[in-house]
């Protein structure tokens, strides 16, 4: 469980983030804080601005207005599609990015990630021959090479089957990275993943931040007795005109 607000330290913070593409506003004055060791899910309908928000937090895009506060250590970034080379082996991919990260001991970092991802027996296999789930684990491992204080993941489970999802969340979720104290923020279309694995959720719609709180708080915010979190989420969006 997250610590109380008084004792928590913000690892990531966004203040009045606005992003415009021409006339279209993808994000509109979004502000929030993510605390050390938290798992935060960013949920919302298509086009809500989830990927844009994560891209700005990761430093891939710059905001039109507002500012981002990131931790002193690096922020790990895991894009939606595995951003690794399919012709290279698992170990070669990890070694390449470890060298590009200028880690003092790239080979040790590779060994550590092979253990963490439980892919040691596939280390010499080309990534293109791995299952989607294992590719995504390598993708996440590359994001973790620099031992970031915070890890950002853009829809990490979107292309995976249920078994692969379960393995991935075992790796990322409260029993994995979350349990090791890494701050994790991820976007997802699957609100049940947000309910199961996130300490808090950020609800975005049409570029506006509508809600920040725990899944339980979201259910309570819509009142009544919703059958499940997904129903609560849909009702919440309806009530806010989305």
């Amino acid at each position: 469980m997250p610590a109380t607000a008084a004792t928590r330290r913000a690892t990531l913070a966004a203040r009045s983030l606005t992003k415009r593409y021409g006339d279209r506003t993808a994000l509109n004055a979004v502000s929030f804080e993510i605390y050390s060791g938290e798992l935060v899910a960013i949920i919302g309908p298509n086009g809500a601005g989830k990927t844009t928000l994560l891209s700005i937090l990761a430093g891939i895009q710059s905001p039109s207005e507002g500012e981002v506060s990131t931790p002193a250590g690096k922020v790990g970034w895991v894009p939606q599609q595995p951003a690794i080379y399919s012709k290279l082996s698992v170990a070669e991919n990890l070694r390449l990015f470890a060298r590009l990260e200028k880690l003092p001991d790239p080979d040790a970092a590779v060994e550590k990630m092979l253990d963490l991802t439980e892919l040691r027996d596939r280390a010499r296999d080309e990534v293109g021959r791995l299952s989607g789930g294992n590719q995504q684990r390598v993708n996440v491992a590359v994001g973790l090479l620099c031992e970031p204080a915070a890890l950002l993941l853009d829809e990490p489970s979107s292309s995976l089957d249920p078994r692969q999802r379960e393995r991935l969340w075992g790796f990322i979720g409260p029993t994995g990275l979350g349990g090791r104290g890494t701050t994790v923020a991820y976007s997802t279309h699957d609100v049940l993943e947000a309910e199961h694995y996130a300490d808090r959720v950020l609800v975005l719609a049409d570029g506006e931040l509508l809600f920040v709180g725990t899944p339980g708080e979201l259910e309570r915010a819509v009142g009544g007795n919703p059958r499940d979190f997904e129903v609560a989420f849909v009702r919440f969006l309806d009530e806010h005109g989305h």
Partner: protein
Amino acid sequence: MRWLLVKDFQILRRSPLLVALLVAYPIALALMIGFALSSPPGKPKVAFLTQVPPGQGRIHFGSQEINISSYAKDLFASIQPIIVHSQAEAMADVRSGRALAAVIVPADIPQQIQSLVTTGVGSPTVQVILNSNDPLERQFADQAIKARLNDVQQAVSKQVLHVAVADLQQVLNGGTIQFLGQNFRLLGLRNSRALVQRAIAELPASSPLRSSLGQVVGFADLAIQGLGFASPVLGSIGTPLAVQQTELAGKTTPAATYAATISVIFSLMLVTMLLAAGMLALEREEHAFARLVRGLVSPSALLAEKVVLAGGCATLAALVMSAGISSFVSLAWSRFPLWVVALAAAGIAFGALGVAIGGLAREVRAASLLAFMLSLPIAFIALVPTAAVSGTLKSALDTVAFIFPFKPALDATNNAFSGTAPGIGWPLLHLIGLAVAFGILARAAVRRLA
């Protein structure tokens, strides 16, 4: 950049088909061009029918005889004759494709030439039958036959003029002619004039014949003078013009060397552009581009790495290709360092163009197709001789040739291979300028699509 290069070589090593293509293509092209340049031009197979009976191919002109059959060997110098014995056989050979064309010399051609030479009336005609199925082969055979027929025509014409001049000399100076197997002495104009002058001298001063004979001597003088001019004039008609050629551009490149240079630059362009565009597009296709430029490497360094990779590989391939071609065509090995400089500069310029193309495409196939489609017109336009067109088109071609690297790469490499004009300095500067310009374009393209 070093680790990115290592990574790209690892990827290339695991793409054997692509690497085989990149290595085999320039080698195969070099061998093909080498064999083409070092082999003599082929001779078209031509069915040849002469309907002139044996021993009848002679024409008589004045006191001399010309054997037109002896000129057939000139025609055979540029064709591969298939001797046939009837017009039907000749036509059948052309129709079947056994011969590209047929040449038929009619039976009356000696008489026609004889009549034309002696009376000015006559139309000696050689019949040429071409196979029109293949326009290129048709043109090849047509040009070979017509060129040789023109040579034969000129040779016969010169021989006739030679005979005419000899006969004129006999008319002027006298001599012996053969007619109906007997020798006859010809007095000649000069001897006739001398006889008449001697007769005038022996006539009394009051003789009325003096005036008449004086007119004959005057006519003989005029005729001798006129025919004296006629001989050299007739003699010069066969070859009225001589060509004296002067090269203002200094040392020029032999055609074979120039063709070899074109093939080397064309291969270098294809390899560099395909590799640069493809490898940059691969970063996007693998979704690694955003991850890389997010602090691991700068976009400029990533682009530079692709230029170095593609330019380096292509320069190496082009050097191998040049070495292969030098077995067939004369290339100045003493200028080898300049080969490396020129090809490397060309590789960098084409590499920069390649990454500009790769920056616009999101996937390897699109980038490769775009690079390939662009490279063909770039080469074609640079090779069009601008002196052959005029006005706006010339300006347009010059401009296009200037803004792409093919022409300066060709000039620089041409100079490196053979030391010919223009010098290598300006083309190298041009290539460097284009590399910078395309590098800026590539940077803008990847920024726009980031």
